[in-house]
C-alpha cells in the first residue's frame, strides 16, 4: 500500500515538473517570493517621505515616487510580502477546511453528509462580497482580519468540489477493497484517497490563493485594509486617492497592478499545468497538433486520446 501511495505522489510531482506551463508559473512565483523576502535589504525604505511627490522614474527612483514622495519600487517590492502572505495563507486554510469538511461529507454519506452539505451550501449561497465588506469594516483592520474574512467567505466552494471528488472515489474499487480488508476509514482517506486527489487539492490551493489575492486587493482598495501598511492593495488605494491617472503619474499605478496580474497569471499557469497532468488528453492534442501538419486536420476530425481510468 505504501509503495503505491509513494509512487502516485512522486509520479504526480514529476508530471508537474515536466509540464511547461506549471514550471513557468512556479518560477515566476518563486521569483516574487524571493524579491519580497529580500525586500528590506535591497530597496530604500518604502515608508520614508523622501522626495518630490509624483516624480517620474529616474536614476534615483527607478519607478518614480508616489503622491507622498515615497519610492514606488520599494513600495511595490515590499507590498508583495503581506499580499502574498495573506494570499497563500488563505489558500492553505481554505484547502484544509475544504478537505476536512468536504472530505468527511463526501466519504460518510447519510446524516453527516446531509448536515455538512447543508452547511456548505448555506455558506456557498451567502453573498460573499457584501459579507466581506461588512465584516472587514467592523473588525480591526489588518492581515488577520483579511485572512479571516477571506477564509470565511471562500471555503465553501472548495469544500463542495472536494466533496464531489471524494464521493466519486468512494465508489471506486480500490476503496471497497480497502474497506473489505479491514482498513480504518481515516487511514483510507489519508493514505489511499488523498494522494489521488493531489491535483484537485493543489489546484484548489492555487485557485483559492488567486481568489484571496484578488479579493484582498479589492478590499484594501476600498480602504478596508490597514492603510498604514504597505501592501499591493493599499498602494493602489493611495494611488487612486492621489489621482495617479489623472495627473498622468502612471508609474504610481501600473507597477503594482502589473505585479498582481503577473502573480495571478503565474498561478493560473500552474493550474493549467496541473489540469494537463490530470487530464492527459489536453496534452495529447497539443502533441498531436504539433506532430500532424495543419492541413491534415480536416473538418474538425481530431485524434483524441481515450481515458482509461
Amino acid at each position: 500500500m505504501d509503495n503505491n501511495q509513494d509512487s502516485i505522489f512522486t509520479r504526480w510531482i514529476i508530471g508537474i515538473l515536466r509540464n511547461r506551463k506549471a514550471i513557468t508559473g512556479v518560477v515566476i512565483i518563486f521569483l516574487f517570493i524571493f524579491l519580497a523576502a529580500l525586500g528590506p535589504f535591497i530597496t530604500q525604505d518604502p515608508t520614508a517621505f523622501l522626495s518630490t511627490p509624483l516624480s517620474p522614474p529616474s536614476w534615483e527612483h527607478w519607478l518614480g515616487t508616489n503622491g507622498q514622495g515615497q519610492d514606488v519600487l520599494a513600495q511595490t517590492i515590499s507590498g508583495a510580502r503581506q499580499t502574498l502572505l495573506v494570499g497563500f495563507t488563505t489558500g492553505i486554510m481554505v484547502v484544509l477546511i475544504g478537505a476536512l469538511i468536504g472530505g468527511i461529507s463526501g466519504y460518510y454519506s447519510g446524516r453527516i453528509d446531509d448536515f455538512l452539505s447543508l452547511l456548505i451550501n448555506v455558506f456557498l449561497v451567502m453573498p460573499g462580497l457584501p459579507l466581506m465588506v461588512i465584516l472587514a469594516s467592523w473588525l480591526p483592520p489588518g492581515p488577520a482580519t483579511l485572512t479571516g474574512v477571506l477564509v470565511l467567505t471562500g471555503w465553501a466552494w472548495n469544500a463542495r468540489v472536494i466533496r464531489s471528488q471524494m464521493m466519486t472515489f468512494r465508489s471506486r474499487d480500490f476503496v471497497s477493497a480497502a474497506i473489505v480488508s479491514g482498513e480504518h476509514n481515516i487511514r483510507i482517506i489519508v493514505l489511499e484517497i488523498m494522494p489521488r486527489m493531489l491535483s484537485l487539492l493543489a489546484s484548489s490551493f492555487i485557485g483559492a490563493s488567486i481568489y484571496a489575492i484578488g479579493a484582498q486587493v479589492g478590499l484594501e482598495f476600498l480602504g478596508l485594509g490597514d492603510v498604514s501598511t504597505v501592501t499591493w492593495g493599499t498602494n493602489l488605494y493611495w494611488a487612486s486617492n492621489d489621482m495617479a491617472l489623472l495627473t498622468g503619474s502612471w508609474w504610481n499605478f501600473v507597477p503594482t497592478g502589473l505585479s498582481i496580474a503577473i502573480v495571478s497569471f503565474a498561478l493560473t499557469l500552474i493550474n493549467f499545468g496541473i489540469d494537463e497532468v490530470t487530464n492527459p488528453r489536453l496534452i495529447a492534442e497539443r502533441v498531436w497538433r504539433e506532430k500532424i501538419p495543419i492541413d491534415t486536420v480536416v473538418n474538425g476530425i481530431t485524434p483524441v486520446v481515450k481515458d482509461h481510468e
Partner: protein
Amino acid sequence: MNQSLNYLLRRLGFYFIAAWAALTLNFFIPRLMPGDPAAIIFARFRGKLKPEAINALRETFGLTDEPLLGQYWSYLKSILQGDLGISIAYFPEPVTNIISSALLWTIFLAGFSLIISFSLGTLLGTIIAWKRSGKLDSTLPPVLAFVGAFPYFWLAMVALYIFGFELSWFPLGHAYGDDVTPGFNMPFILSALYHAALPALTMILVSLGGWMLSMRNIMITTLGTDYISFAHAKGLSSRLIMLRYAARNAILPNFTGFGMALGFVLSGALLTEIIFSYPGQGYLLLQAVRAQDFPLMQGLFMTITFAVLAANWMVDIAVLFFDPRTRK
C-alpha cells in the same frame, strides 16, 4: 416525474433553511458592529444634544432597548410583511424605495454583462475546442487569462481614463445621460446602453477568459466520449456534432456555474459601480455600512441573498429540464 418533483421540493426546503440562516445572520451582524448610529448622526452636527433629544431621535429610528430576542421576532415579522424599515442615512425614506431603483440598475448592468460574457465565452470555448487551429487556441486563452489576472478595478480605472477621459469615446459615469428622461423611450434606452457600455465591457473582458476556458476543457472531455466518435462514424456533419451533441452536453456543468454567477451579480458589481458612478446596489451597501445604517444594510443583504437563492432555484429547474439524466 415524481422523483424530480421530490428533488425540487427538497431543494426548496434547503433554500428556506438557507434563507432563514441568512436572515438571522443579517440580523445579528449589524448589531454586533461597534458604534451607535444615533451617535454617528449627532456627530454630524455642530451643537451638542441634550439627553432628551437623543432619546427622541433613537425612538424615531427604532433603536429601542427592547431585549434582543424581542427585536429579533419583530424583525422577522416585518420582513414577512415586506416592511424593511426606514433608512437611517437617508431618513426618512423607506428602505424598499431606496433599494428598488438601485436594484434595477444593478440587474441591468451586471446581468447584461454576465449574459454576454457567458454566451460569448461559451461560444469561443466551443469553437476553440473544436477547431484545433493553432492560432486561436494558443493565443486567446493565455491572453484572456492574463487580462483576467489584473485586479478588476485596475482595468476599469484604466479603461475609464483612456476611453472615457482621454478619448471621450464613452461617458464618464452614471447610468444614463442628463438630457434624457427615464421611461420607455428610445433616447433613454439608447442612452442607458451607451452608459452601460464601458462598465459592461470591462466586466465582460475580465470574466470572458474564465467561461471560455471552462467550456473548452469540458468540451475536450466530452469530445473524447464514445457517442461523439459514433456520430463521426455515422457521417454526421462536424458542425452538427459540435453544436447539437458536444456543446449541448458540455454546457450543463458550465450552466450551473452561470446560475451561481447570476446570483452573485446582485452582490452588486461593487467596484464597477464606484468607479463608473453607476447607481446600483453594491455602492449603496458600502454607504450603508459606512453610515451604520442597519435597516438599509439588512435590506440590501436580504435582497441579495434572496436573489441568489432564487437564481439557484431557477438553475435547478433548468438543469432538471435540460438534462435527461436527472429526469430519472
